[in-house]
């Protein structure tokens, strides 16, 4: 820790002669020949400092001590009980990696998510057999991380693996199908295969509705992705209709959140979704603002959503900005029923002390 100021872990050079004969060490990230070693756990190796730092930031900092009992197993003769113990440790490790990767993904830190996702996949392969359907979530996670860094070739490969695994075990739940179809759809959008993307998103929405319900945010995101494709295809009527549905769903969700927020003071909103929702709503807002026929009602609705979102996220500056956009749009329509809630929200943002008193106008 004292070597690098960014707390990147400490490494030392590997001395091949100090290792048992015939053991060759590989880099944790790229599987190339290793030259460095983590001095804390002494069981993790890297080809260079860059990979070591990436791994440290990604996952190693969190799991460094946990790796020791697992990776030193071959040195001692193990009893059955010990083996089970190690297996349990691995499962625990896998869970940690998955949650770390997921939270990094939702924060849009794809680079950092990569090591965690990769380790997660390796762990799952180790714990389950390499062909088991338990690997599907790990494949999907890694694919998503790679999608973030635009490594489409690898994404394609990983998703084919996942698809193959799903084909072999069609009994896996709607959640898995939903994630697979969404990843495939996004890949196809990125590669410009819009029709195939639509098919995948349609399946995505179906499975999301089965797993989480019609009004769930997951299904809503599916609708958004699909609407985006329709907009790209120039099918504006469909896109308009779907975008307004998305905005409507989010409006209901956020209004509910605001209500509980006012009553409980404590933030009740799921932070991990924040970036995704923000992106969704901004795209929708942009869509309406670029429309030839300005639909003030929709602009007001979406801007109101964004204002609520940022208010819940604690950024009063942005909340104020979007709130004003919403107010302007709503005032273009006489007697719009959104005007009053928007004004209420703006007052809330400006006088944060008063938010403890529910029911103030």
């Amino acid at each position, binding site marked *: 820790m004292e070597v690098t100021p960014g707390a990147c872990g400490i490494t030392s050079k590997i001395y091949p002669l100090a290792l048992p004969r015939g053991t060759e060490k590989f880099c944790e990230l790229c599987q190339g020949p290793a030259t460095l070693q983590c001095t804390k756990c002494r069981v993790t190796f890297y080809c260079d400092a860059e990979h070591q730092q990436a791994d440290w930031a990604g996952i190693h900092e969190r799991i460094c001590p946990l790796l020791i009992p697992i990776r030193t197993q071959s040195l001692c003769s193990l009893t059955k009980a010990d083996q089970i113990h190690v297996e349990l440790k691995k499962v625990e490790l896998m869970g940690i990696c998955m949650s770390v990767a997921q939270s990094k993904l939702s924060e849009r830190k794809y680079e950092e998510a990569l090591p965690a996702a990769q380790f997660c996949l390796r762990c799952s392969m180790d714990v389950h057999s390499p062909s088991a359907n338990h690997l599907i979530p790990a494949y999907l996670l890694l694919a998503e991380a790679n999608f973030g860094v635009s490594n489409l070739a690898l994404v394609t490969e990983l998703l084919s693996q996942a698809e193959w695994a799903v084909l072999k075990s069609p009994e896996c739940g709607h959640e898995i199908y939903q994630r697979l179809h969404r990843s495939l759809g996004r890949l196809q959008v990125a590669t410009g295969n819009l029709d195939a993307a639509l098919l995948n998103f349609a399946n995505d*929405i*179906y499975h999301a509705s089965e797993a989480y319900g*019609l009004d769930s945010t997951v299904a809503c995101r599916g*609708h958004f992705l*699909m609407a985006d494709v*329709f907009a790209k295809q120039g099918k504006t009527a469909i896109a308009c209709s779907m975008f307004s549905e998305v905005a409507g769903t989010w409006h209901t969700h956020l209004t509910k959140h605001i209500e509980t927020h006012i009553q409980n003071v404590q933030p009740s909103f799921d932070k991990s979704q924040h970036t995704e929702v923000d992106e969704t709503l901004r795209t929708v807002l942009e869509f309406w603002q670029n429309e030839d026929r300005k639909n003030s009602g929709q602009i007001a609705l979406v801007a109101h959503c964004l204002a609520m979102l940022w208010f819940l996220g604690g950024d009063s500056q942005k909340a104020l900005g979007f709130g004003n956009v919403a107010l302007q749009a709503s005032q273009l329509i006489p007697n719009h029923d959104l005007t009053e809630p928007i004004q209420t929200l703006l007052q809330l943002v400006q006088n944060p002390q008063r938010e403890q008193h529910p029911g103030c106008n």
Partner: protein
Amino acid sequence: MNAAVTHPHTETFLPEIPPNRKKRRKGSYYSRLEEPLKAGLVSEYSTHIPSIAEISKFRNSLKQNICVEILLEGFHRTFSELFYLLNSDRDRRESAEPGTDLARQTPLEEQKDKLETMRRHLSRAEQAERTRSWTVVCEQRLFLGRYFSSQEDLWLRLHFCHSCADREYGGRSRSATEARVHLAEHYLQTGELEQAQQQAEICIQQAEGGDWLDSDGQPLKLRGAKALWRIYLKIADPLLDAEEYRKALALLHIGYDEVLKTEDKQLEAEAAYGLGLTNQRAGDHKRAKQFFNTCMQIYSTLEDAEGLVKSYMAMAKSLQSEGNIDETVQWLEKSADVSLSSGQQHRLVDAYLRLGKIYNERSQSTRAYEFFLQGYEVACDVGDVSLLDQIQVRCSSMIVTALFQIFSVNFGPFVSQVIVGTLRAHRLMEKYSADIRSATPTALQRLLTWKDTRQPQDFSADDSDSAMD
């Protein structure tokens, strides 16, 4: 080798081979064989390489396929609605008690026709919604409401009719108004009278201006008024039971006014009859008779024998309650005549029985007997056990109670015979009752001989008949 050997043979055996083909490929027995084979295979492969969508049709459930197809067409609202309906169907069946009809119903998601119909019409409705053609939206939804008519699909009918009638836009269109009639009739059937009344009233209000016809070509206004009248009758029923006659009559008069507006004679007669009966129950026989008169006039212009008899009988009842027996008898005889000529056996029996009862009360047992006998014979002709039971009930008041009670336990038709038998006995006794009253020795002598010689058969049907003659 083989090919080379058979080659000349095939040449000679084959009838006519076009020369140009022979030119093109020399001695190519195999190639000629392969050509069509290849072509067939290739064409089959090239046109039938299944797409991902086609493959998933086989792999996935019908529900998923339909949902995905709908979404691909961009009809996301149709998807949401269909998905919601399929899930509520599943919930309905799962929450039902095992073994009930509901639990045994075919799941909606397995009925392809219904799914396709819903998909087609909901998509059309959504398309129309985008272009803001609200009447089309309502038409499509009404179609679906009418499409689901079987008992197990009533909830779907209700869903679509409501979704048609309760729209913010287009809710005053013809289709939405018709949907309200369907709803009113449905709620009338299920006994949710408040809802029914509400729907029927809105329907009549909306149909006021236009000459709308429903999908079967019946005027909507008339259908609404008919439904409303029946709903009011049902609502009035418990009021009458609670003897709140004023309330009931006020309600029915509102309904009657609506009926008058439709200028439909049949319905007007029906309503007048209902109002007459209500007044009768309320004890206002004067007004009741007025309504029955209206009723009779309409029925006679319509030449509706059934309606006529019905109103004659009702009139007779009111007159009887007023104590006007002579006129009562007149109306009853009239109704008996009409029922006889128009073949309404049930009414005929009823008329005969009432006449018999009246005569019996006036102690004219001969006439009473005639009518009861006639009624009994007609009832026997019809062969209706319930009618025979009715005779038994009607006559019960005049029968020696003990005798009746003994037999009435299980032998409905049999008891009727007993009753008739008793009547015959009365007739027989009449012959001798004069002798008893006169109390002369000769009369006494006659009675004594009868007592000595009489046998059980004297009371049997045949004997008494001959005695009567």
